[in-house]
């Protein structure tokens, strides 16, 4: 019982620290000087390096989803609904959450390990001594970069997933490219695309904040760096599902799912 209480205390302290870290992020974001060059570097680095992974994941998900769903829809004679069904499920839910989870593993752990390693090798101290605010230079730029690039990655991931789905339909059902994507765009509405894009920003924010937080307060030693990277992924993944639940709940109120 005492152990559970201690664990709960630690968890609550961590939530408190993360909240303080988040408020500091918002405060520092609007303070001069702005690190535009580093922000662009990070956007390029995060977007470019995650693109292939996101595209492959999206492509496979599109293929698998269509292959798995096809027999059931055929049983009900509703195979013509495939583009609508796949597009709505991918754009609303599967695309954003899956891309976010992939990026949590790829970007979140990378940020945690990089900043953690900079902490233990005194690079962050060196930065501070040279008159640079390391929070602005390292944290603000990385969090903004992942917040801005994740929605773009989600859009690319969705597009590739839909292309994967089209390939299956083309091979199995002889559906043309124009017909398939006509049905896709006819079935998608503002209420499908907009909430998914908005929640992608929050997913990006969560990935960046948790990764940076874990790295910035990394304990000394190489074990600390490994732990920071690992816990960044675990904590972010949990947070992504919580954000997703809240996003769906709010979307339901405004767009009447």
């Amino acid at each position, binding site marked *: 019982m005492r152990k559970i209480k201690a664990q709960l205390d630690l968890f609550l302290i961590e939530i408190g620290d993360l909240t303080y870290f988040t408020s500091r992020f918002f405060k520092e974001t609007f303070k001069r000087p702005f690190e535009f060059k580093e922000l662009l570097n990070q956007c390029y680095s995060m977007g470019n390096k995650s693109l292939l992974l996101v595209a492959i994941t999206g492509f496979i998900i599109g293929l698998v989803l269509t292959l798995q769903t096809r027999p059931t829809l055929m049983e009900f004679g509703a195979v013509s609904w495939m583009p609508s069904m796949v597009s709505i499920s991918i754009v609303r839910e599967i695309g954003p959450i899956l891309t976010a989870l992939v990026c949590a593993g790829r970007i979140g752990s990378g940020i945690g390990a990089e900043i953690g390693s900079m902490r233990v090798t005194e690079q962050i101290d060196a930065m501070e*001594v*040279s*008159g640079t605010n390391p929070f602005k230079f390292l944290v603000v730029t990385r969090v903004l970069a992942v917040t801005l690039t994740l929605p773009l990655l989600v859009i690319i991931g969705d597009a590739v997933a839909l292309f994967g789905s089209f390939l299956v339909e083309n091979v199995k059902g002889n559906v043309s490219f124009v017909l398939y994507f006509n049905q896709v765009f006819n079935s998608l509405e503002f209420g499908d695309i907009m909430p998914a894009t908005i929640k992608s920003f929050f997913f990006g924010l969560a990935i960046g904040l948790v990764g940076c937080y874990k790295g910035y307060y990394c304990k000394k030693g190489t074990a600390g760096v490994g732990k920071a990277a690992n816990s960044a992924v675990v904590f972010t993944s949990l947070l992504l599902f919580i954000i997703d639940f809240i996003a769906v709940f709010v979307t339901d109120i405004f767009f009447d799912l």
Partner: protein
Amino acid sequence: MTNNKQIPTQDIVLEIKDLRKSFGDNHVLNGFNLQLHQSENLVIMGKSGSGKSVMIKCLVGLMEADSGSISVMHNDITKLDQRALDILRADIGFLFQGSALYDSMTVRENLEFPLRRHSKRFKDDTNRDAIVIEALENVGLKDAIDLMPAELSGGMQKRVALARALILKPKIMLYDEPTSGLDPITAKEIIMLMQVIQKKYGTSSLIITHDVDCARVISDRMILLIDGIDYATGTFAELSTHKDPKIKAFFKN
């Protein structure tokens, strides 16, 4: 147990009075004092874990002291706001124990980093390039300009870190264990380099070490940090022949 010469206060570039710092029940600094004079090499010696690094981190505002005052060039750093502290830090060079080179940047970018931060001092880009090359020439590593830190040996990393620390032409240099982790030959080279640079730029240096050889060669004056206080002050010759058992044991070990 002090042996201070009477030196005019305007010659004091750095002064610590009654510095205290604890981590829970662990009282690391219990009222530490020091004065660093213009163009002086002051060595702080103490055993591992005696609080030397804590003291030097308090000195540049990387760590907050529990109490006491720290005056750097007549500015009490405990009372400065962040902006004023950043400006003051341009006059302080810091050589970290593990070099602390930014490993995602090349040697050139590492050296340019402080210059970009203090761009008002170095507005011209051509000038900036020349400053980087001059700094690397000073440490004999001009050819390493486009290498990554991971491609350098420990001694070379230390030299680049020294070049970076000196690039803003600081008035005070802080060295945290400059010879730790180096073989005796490379350690000697670094010490010689420190002496050459000190002569060339006339900087005041505060050197933290537990390397007795380093202290013997480089110190004008020494302070022994024992039990969190400035236990003894004097020249190397004075302290190394001292009768006090704690000091004696220190030099024996």
